[in-house]
């Protein structure tokens, strides 16, 4: 009735391979990740960030000319995380697929992680307040896993990446409007060791 553990592992490996070219999602639908998935019906349209609303604390930096190692590498973990070169990835309502913009962000984050090969990170999955508290714990996990799988597909070692879901427990923006919700549906990157 249901795939065995081994078959399931094989499926996961396959998914990761597909992710190399496409950017994977682990849902049961065929993992077409390229063109951003069509927005969910109804009110969701308005909320899907076409180009995600620029996150508030977007560091001006990590321009093409990278910040020098002394600049970032020598900071404390708190300082790094306060003004992080790792950018958040945003999601559409009820979705955990990485869209085109998310892929660009993750490619950037992969570059940062290649530049600092000793960094260990935790990817936090977060949700907006419109899902339920309970389901959001799982949805946030799926978002974190999707971001991790994409980084792994770009060659970042899975050993360097942990995931954790906070559901809707820690909104980045406490507001109750579309703008806040779009910021809260995110995978947030925290450097935990360097």
């Amino acid at each position: 009735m249901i795939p065995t553990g081994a078959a399931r592992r094989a499926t996961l490996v396959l998914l990761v391979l597909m992710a190399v070219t496409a950017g994977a999602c682990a849902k049961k639908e065929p993992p077409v990740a390229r063109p951003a998935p069509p927005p969910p019906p109804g009110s969701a349209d308005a909320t899907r960030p076409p180009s995600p609303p620029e996150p508030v604390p977007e560091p001006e930096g990590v321009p093409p000319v990278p910040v020098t190692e002394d600049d970032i590498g020598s900071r404390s973990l708190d300082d790094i995380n306060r003004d992080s070169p790792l950018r958040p990835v945003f999601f559409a309502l009820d979705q955990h697929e990485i869209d085109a913009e998310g892929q660009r962000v993750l490619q950037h984050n992969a570059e940062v992680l290649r530049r600092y090969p000793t960094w260990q990170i935790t990817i936090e999955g977060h949700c907006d307040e419109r899902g339920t508290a309970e389901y959001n714990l799982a949805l946030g996990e799926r978002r974190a896993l999707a971001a991790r799988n994409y980084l792994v597909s770009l060659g970042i070692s899975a050993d360097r990446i942990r995931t954790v879901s906070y559901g809707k427990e820690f909104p980045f923006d406490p507001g109750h409007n579309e703008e806040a919700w779009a910021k809260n549906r995110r995978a947030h990157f925290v450097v935990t060791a360097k």
Partner: protein
Amino acid sequence: MQSPFRLIAILLVLSAGVTVFALQDPPAQPPQQQSEIQLEITGQAGAPPRYAVPDFAALSGDAETTEAAKTIGQVLWDDLAFEREFYMIPRNLYASIPQARTEADVPWDQWRELGADGLVLGTVRKDGAGLRIEVRLINVRSRQVVFAREYSGSAGNPRAYAHTIADEIHQHQRALRGVARTKLTFASDRDREKILTTVEDRDVKEIYISDYDGANQRRITVNRTLSITPTWAPDGRSIAYTSYVRGFPTIFISYIYEGRREEPAGRGTQNWLPAWSPDGTKIAFTSNRDGNPELYVMNRDGSGLRRLTNHPAIDTTPTWSPTGTQIAFTSDRAGGPAIYIIGADGLNLRRISPGSNCDRPTWSPAPFNEIAFVCRTGPGYDVMIYDFASGDVRQITFGEGSNESPSYAPNGRHLAFTSTRAGRVQVFTVGRDGRNVRQITHVGNNYTPDWSR
């Protein structure tokens, strides 16, 4: 005649008003009752009996006894009103009727005039360091005592006596298991403490317990991180919850009266949303240990782990059937999250919620055969109830704020849930018919309530 009362007294003293709900009703009839007396007080012409509960009489003059006498009367009235088995005459209507200390003092005409069918007469007396309480339920028409009890114990929590009396009256008059001695548990951010290990400004949530009516709210964890989704073990001695103490979600069992805790689901794996089996021997929960949120079942000591679902979609939020043979849960395998049922052996999957965007199933105890859950109905969620007999779903909240996380009372007649209707996220209780909404919490935000068995 003394022995059952002494047992109650001992239990009251031992529990100091904390675990009173674990106490079983002694089946004893009031000894002075004769078999020919009509024990059940009835109302007029099919109407529910009308009850009056005046202040208990303080037989000692000290402030503590006087205060306890007032408290017990008020709380007993509230407890009896909660089950809606009796018409509770508003207390201000009889504030002027002279207080009686014995049946001989009762101004019967005044109570008849008020239309009272049942009158609760109680006294409180100082007894060493504690209290001695006597209570009688009297049929106003026949002037017969149909129920009499005597309690003695700690003076620390007079409300506990009222809860015990209410449960015994419901049992005696209605063969109903009342919930006055049950408790709630929930997560709260009311302390406004901040998590120290993060750069972002994040509020701590800790686990709280309270009486079923919101009195005696008490924090039971000091984790200084996220502690959420608490659930009472069926024996009321421990609470399982989701803790982020390890930096990711894991399940703790906190033995709240012993100050120790266990972490049964194993180190290094992420586990959340514990749900006790009705016999307390097993816990169902969600884990991503195999790479995706799936349902698992383990024994309460962590042994005997079994995987219950295996699907690339999300499977989460389990709740057990009263017999422990089935589990309802949330899955988004067909698109949006919906409610499914599966056998505890992992077989016979079926879907019960019509719409999508539903979550937090909670299976009613007997005698009702239904499952409550929430579905998105607009900007927020409302509480729905699926009835197995008819297959119908009825709605019991209607867009007053967003309503989430229902949990049944042990007699199945009430649910606790959270709502934003009063501004922030607060715990409320409501009858299974959607009536009798009561706000339980008022401070901070409060989440994911669970009602003790």
